[in-house]
């Protein structure tokens, strides 16, 4: 069944098109609440701006890669994502003795579901990126070029190897990466192809 976009899907389109007018509206409408939450919970203005920016970049990638459709109001969905991101960050920093001040926000099941989807997309993407860095060496060098340039003929030309070799190597390197990802404690099985 085709998903019907919510009217707030305009913010997702604005992220994809880098539309500063609509993004300006997004900041005016929604950033205050997030800044309020983070500054009340051991963060400052810069922390809040970082969290807002990183969350929006994740949504941008999800929209570009997965054709993400927003089917609920942006407000609580965005707030929930920023809030979780901030809580993860302060948990990592191990800020002790922090009392989390909660604000009452009503969140529908749909908003919760879509926020979970975005969060899962982000966790998976960051796991892939981390493992690519950990892969290192010649494999990483080859994959950096192969991921950037679609044509494997061109990749082979840049690397000064044959097309057949470049292609085989690329598949073996992604294979190595696949194993590293699946062996990670953070890996959650993919349910859909």
């Amino acid at each position, binding site marked *: 069944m085709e998903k019907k976009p919510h009217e707030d899907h305009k913010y997702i389109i604005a992220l994809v098109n880098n539309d500063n007018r609509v*993004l300006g509206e997004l900041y005016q409408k929604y950033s205050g609440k997030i800044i309020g939450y983070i500054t009340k919970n051991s963060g400052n203005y810069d922390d809040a701006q970082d969290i807002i*920016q990183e969350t929006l970049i994740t949504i941008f990638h999800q929209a570009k890669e997965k054709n993400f459709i927003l089917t609920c109001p942006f407000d609580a969905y965005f707030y929930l994502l920023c809030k979780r991101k901030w809580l993860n960050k302060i948990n990592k920093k191990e800020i002790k003795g922090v009392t989390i001040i909660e604000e009452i926000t009503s969140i529908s099941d749909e908003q919760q579901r879509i926020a979970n989807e975005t969060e899962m997309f982000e966790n998976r993407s960051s796991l892939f990126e981390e493992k690519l860095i950990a892969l290192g060496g010649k494999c990483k060098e080859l994959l950096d070029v192969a991921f950037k340039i679609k044509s494997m003929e061109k990749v082979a030309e840049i690397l000064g190897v044959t097309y057949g070799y470049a292609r085989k190597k690329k598949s073996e390197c992604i294979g190595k990466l696949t194993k590293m990802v699946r062996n990670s404690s953070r890996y959650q099985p993919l349910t859909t192809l």
Partner: protein
Amino acid sequence: MKTFDYLDIEKYLQGELQGQDLELFNQKLNNDADFAEEVSVYKAINNTLSSRAQLHKEENELRNTLEDLGKISLKRTNNSQSFTDKKKKTKVFTLSNVSKFLVAASLVMFTSLLFIQKGKPTYNDFATHQSMDLVVRGDSVSVFSEVQKAFNSKDYVLAENKLQKLTVADKTKVELQLYLGICMLEQDKFELAEKIFTKIKNGKSVYVNKAIWYLALSKLKQEDYENSTSFAKLIPKDADDYDKAQQLLKKL
């Protein structure tokens, strides 16, 4: 059951497996859950990391916009904070404050009268530039803080010199371009300044309306009132400089 290597997975995902090979591959996918998971992860890694690599430039451009919007929202927060503070302060009115206020009011009226007699508004009536706030977090001893110091102390020659270098090094920061244009405008390098403002005006950054406002100011400084009016009229209601543009239009 036939074994498949990673090159076979690659070929399958590219739609290059055919005939019996494809049939066997599909059979294995249906009967071997671990193999199916391996193929899914392979595909997801390929899709995600290719997408990230190919969107690198677009992502940076979006980051620039978001950074600028963050700065603007901070300035708005600070402005509304100082406005609230001012409002709080003016609540207490003593007799001496009232008399000071009356003196100030008469001075304002007097200068306004002078202004009306003089006729057309001038560039200096409106050229109050927002102070530069470029220092990137944790980057206080950088060249950014030097250019900021020069600009905020109105040393436009030095600021221009440093901004020229910065804008060559990083062509994506529209904010730097805008300040470079202002430095040129302050030194009456109208043609160069307007070239920069026009480029920003025709772009997609958050500084489009600022650039239009500076084009209006540039024309005002050259006493080209007709074009100054035309630019001032283009400033939309939600822009930061809307009120100033309306004042200018009234006086013109």
